[in-house]
């Protein structure tokens, strides 16, 4: 073994290795080309545009850090960041907990599992615009179905998409309704927990809650962390539901162009991506929109890195066991 360490590989083996590498590269080429064209190039282009004045029609003109410095005197940007941070915190927690709760209940059902699982998953297949409009109609005050139900108990429905204080919770409710995709993933993880672990815990005298807390939760924690990362990204990119809910709230869901009132009510639904779109495509300032997109990318990237590192740490701690 030692004798071969310093020896040069035989020319035949070198050629074979090169051929192997080429073959691997050939198989990977479609993915690499796709990545470069549809992720790498747009990303670099966005960063480049962020240092330019660009109206979408004429060639961009370099304007240094103007777009970034303007961010500090743009009152709507602060509002958009605040709204998005609200969604990152509230929506992430609510969506993960909700999907976990529904999945945990379904996992314990003895009959009708298939039907209930399908019913819980179905809303996530609805087109976002249609889903939001349906939800808007259901939650509409003064005669909407939810308002009528609340009326039976002598309660008034909140002004979901008309009151700045309720608009974000309203959108969060829509997002929970369509969180069936995450629920299915968590359900699969719960069903994948080895049965022996439950049996061992039961022998040790653990009840259902302690079994769920000490067996289910630790075992599915990597999937939950995936759910958290997925929800954070979803919250950072929240667009369609915010635009449709805001427009419907302002009575202009069926209007076109600039008669749509984005951010209604009182800019409470003006998320970072909605404002980015507004700057780029309604105010024709793609340079500023690109600067905003760059900031959003850096924040998303940083949050994802932190969460993934946390996930890896958790996984290695689990693999190593106590004291590892």
């Amino acid at each position, binding site marked *: 073994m030692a004798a071969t360490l310093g020896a040069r590989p035989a020319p035949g083996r070198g050629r074979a290795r090169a051929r192997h590498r080429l073959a691997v590269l050939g198989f990977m080429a479609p993915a690499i080309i796709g990545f470069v064209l549809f992720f*790498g*190039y747009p990303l*670099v*282009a966005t960063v*480049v*545009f962020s240092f330019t*004045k*660009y*109206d*979408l*029609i*004429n*060639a*961009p003109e370099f304007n240094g850090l*103007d777009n970034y410095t*303007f961010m500090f*005197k*743009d*009152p709507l940007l602060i509002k958009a960041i605040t709204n998005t941070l609200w969604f990152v915190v509230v929506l992430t927690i609510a969506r993960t907990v909700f999907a976990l709760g529904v999945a945990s209940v379904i996992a314990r059902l003895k009959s009708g599992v298939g039907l209930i699982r399908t019913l819980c998953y179905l809303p996530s297949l609805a087109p976002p615009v249609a889903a939001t409009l349906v939800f808007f109609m259901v939650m*509409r*005050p*003064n*005669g*909407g179905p939810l*308002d009528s139900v609340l009326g039976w108990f002598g309660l*008034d429905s909140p*002004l*979901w*998409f*008309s*009151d700045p204080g309720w608009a974000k919770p309203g959108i969060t409710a829509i997002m929970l309704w369509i969180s069936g995709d995450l629920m299915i993933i968590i359900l699969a993880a719960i069903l994948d927990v080895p049965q022996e672990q439950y049996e061992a815990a039961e022998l040790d005298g653990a009840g259902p809650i302690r079994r769920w807390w000490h067996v289910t939760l630790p075992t599915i924690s990597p999937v939950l962390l995936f759910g958290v990362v997925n929800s954070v990204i979803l919250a950072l990119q929240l667009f369609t539901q915010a635009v449709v809910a805001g427009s*419907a*709230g*302002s*009575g*202009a*869901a*069926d*209007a*076109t*162009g*600039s*008669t749509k*009132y*984005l*951010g*209604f*009510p*009182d*800019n409470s639904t003006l998320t970072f991506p909605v404002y980015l779109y*507004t700057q780029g*495509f*309604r*105010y*024709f*300032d793609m340079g*500023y929109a690109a600067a905003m997109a760059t900031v959003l990318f850096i924040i998303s990237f940083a949050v994802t890195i932190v969460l993934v590192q946390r996930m890896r740490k958790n996984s290695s701690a689990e693999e190593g066991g106590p004291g590892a």
Partner: protein
Amino acid sequence: MRKHTRAALLCVAAALTLTACAAGKGGGSSTDGAAAAPGKDDKLTLTVWSNYSDREYEEVTKALKTFNKKFPNIEIKHEGSQDDDKITAGIRSGNTPDVALSFTTDNIGQFCSSGAFQALKPYIDRDKVDLNQISPAVREYTEYKGNRCAMPMLTDVYAMYYNKDMMSAAGVTNPPKTMDELYDAATKLTKKAPNGDIEVAGYLPTMGFYANRPTILAPSYDAAWETADGKSALASSPGWTEMMKFQKKLVDFYGYDALERFRAGLGQEYSADHAFHQGKIAIMMDGEYRTAFLKAQAPQIKFGTAPFPTLKADQYGTAFTTGTIMGIPKGAKNPGAAWELIKHLSFDTDTIVDLANGIKNVPSTKAAMESSKLEVDEQFKTFIDLAKSNKLKGNPVTPIGDAHIKAVTDFSVSYQSGKVPDLQAGLKEVDKNIDDQIAKSGK
């Protein structure tokens, strides 16, 4: 490490090159001069993009086909449901229509200043087109800083709609003409339940709701958008302060919370569930197209129309106007033929009148408004009379899309909700934000 640096530099250089290439796309025909009109034997297809759909799409297609009487050799391909985002994307990608129809006059500043729509002056000069056939306000919203890059295809004129039955039941004998009269009428027409809930609102003052947009309301208060030196004039033009105060006074009459609860339950603007169709509001501002909606969707509503009340009596009869605009996008393959089509749609009286009758819009030329073929009933006459007057005011044209309109709407909503302690200071702040945004655009 050095290898990595070199690779990274190469990547950035490649990206910059690609970016420059992509950004430079969309060029095409020259805008220096007018392209020649097509010959009688030239076979070509003109592509027209518009945002029309359903019945209106059919009517516009019919109008486009009338062009074949002059040019039977030109085939017209009309693609509907194309908004401004798609037009811009088409120009950038080189997949441009020959004629683009846009509903969004807020974008004319961008279209003209960026060259997205080609300059029409060479064509107008060459063909000695008399633009005086079109009213000054309509001419204003189809050009930017003297650069005419679009022509109007019909117009929308805004006025007051009132429910006749509700008015007579409340003892309001005449449509209000001033804001004071409007306030009195609104309070008389409002019906509240014993628990304070609003059942019918005389007039809904909420900014941003239905046609309560600052652009549409500004003429009634003589509120100017710009100072003489081109700065935002919200704080310096007294009309804005008066508008905000009037709206706030009405909001306070209803009670903000009660008003918001009432408003939140109203139907969407272009649905049959519209509050005026449902008899939930008695007076409103809207465009002439609402006459057709009301007749089709709410024939039981007996309504009248009149100029919207104004702050001062001598301003009565003023109105806001906007409309569909037509332009030749940068990179259009047949600009000469495109201009002929635009000219036809802009000035052929029979075509304009038929289209106006079809989609219930106001014709954009004086000749078409005088045509005996134009279907004018009692309600529609108000809009024709306003369009013929010299008191029309057009859409404010800026290079920042509707950023200024959103800024005023946002502020007004905050003010109505009682969140703004100092109205003048707030308006000055909005002025500054609008000026900053325009300065950033560099146009």
